[in-house]
């Protein structure tokens, strides 16, 4: 079970970091660039 927990932690970290970078891009990108 701890193995699964460790996997979830790692996977979520990658998602959270990329999500933060995406949000920064979304907030700072001008002229309505499309996703």
């Amino acid at each position, binding site marked *: 079970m701890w193995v699964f927990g*460790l*996997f979830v932690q790692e*996977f979520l970290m*990658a*998602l959270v970091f*990329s999500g933060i970078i*995406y949000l920064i*891009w979304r907030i700072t990108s001008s002229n309505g660039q499309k996703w």
Partner: protein
Amino acid sequence: MSSPIIYAAIYFIIVVFGSCFYFRGKVKNVDDFTTGGKTLKWYMVASGLALIPLGSGHTMNLWEASAGLGAGVLFWPVIVGGIFLPLATLWFGPWLRELNVQTFPESLEMQFGPAMGYLNGAVNTATWTGICMGETLATGGAIYGLTGGAIPFKPWCIIIAFVLIMVYVIFGGVLQYSIVSTVNATVMIVGSYIALIMTGGWLSANAMGWTGVVEHYTALDQAWKLEIFRFSPDLFFQIIIPVAVLHITAAAVTQGVYIPIFAAKSTQEVRKATFLAACINGMSSFPWVLMGLAAMTIPSIAAGGAKLSVINHALQNLPAPIVGLLMVCLLAATLSTGSSVMLGNATVIVNVILKRACFPNMKPETEFKLMRPMIIVCGLAACVPALVAPMIFPIFLWCFSFGIPMFFVWLVGMVWKCSKAAAWITILVTYLINFIWTFATPSWAPGPFALNMYPVTVSAIVLIIVLNAILPGETGLLKRHRAAQASKAA
């Protein structure tokens, strides 16, 4: 010959040579070869991008490092997948596409004139040949280890690695690379997790399962090795900071990283690739690190050392098809990095050095004819030294450290100011520091500052900011380019 190599050989013959056959006659000019005619969809961009920085570092280095630093080493793929790749897909890559350049050095040429582009083209190609030498050795090591030493490491495993790196890209260029990478990314993730599940099955049958692994480390007072969020100075200075700096800076100024981005159908397809690339890369190291941590609890395997832990565990405890699958996974990781570097280097040498610098009137047909021989030349430049010399860690960092100042110069030139004098002073001073710290490290340099990448990074940031604040220069390239495009449209 052992059976795992037969399974791996069957896989690579089907995938690599199948793609060679598929692309036979379909790649007709240099644009098809280097940008795939700009046809890649987002999932192919994501697979290609995820695999480019995913080499021996994510796999073999990490299972070895986990023996000392624990599961915290998983910050490596988190930083690469969760930070570097989104930066490349949301900013760096789209900027290059907006400038309508074919290679990374062309963007430096637009900022600071042709000489800076040629410098990047020449230096980056040479330094990444050194890094690719390390990947060739790692690929050879994977073949040697997982065949149980049945094939001599030098020269045969190295030569097999060289041939596999070449056939990965030489027939279809970027299109072949992208399709093979899409297949490999899927097989690598699925295969390595299957091996992890099989490891769990073996532990349950022969030891006390994964609980036994916890008990083993707890008994040694090392339960922290099974936690990701257990920070230590060693984890910071050996994994987190080097991985962040070397990827976000040095890898970002390399043509190889941008291969799928240049080949994407549109900039939107590049952006769409962000989360898939982050997920593939971010979850890629987990099975290797966990297998490494589990393998080191088995006394006979721990006695063989952390470097061979996963390989020895696979050979001793897993069935031959799974060992074959692990070899495919390891080779998928290391070959994709090596081949993207070869394709990127060949593109820069032909386009920037030979065409733009030496023969400006070169015809596109000649450029196309030169691409394949140049890939072989670039491959030989990495393979031949690998046959005679070991890869030494400071030299590896020395190669990487040439890209660090170039990144800061490029970034400042993009978004703030283009001062030729500031750029050249920064580059030349930091290159000098890189040489001094690599070959005559000052005895007074404290702790981690004895490593070349730290003084190079700090001096590059300080110099480029201070010099640009003092010296005159033009506005950042992006602003100028957008203003020019707007006035053209009006």
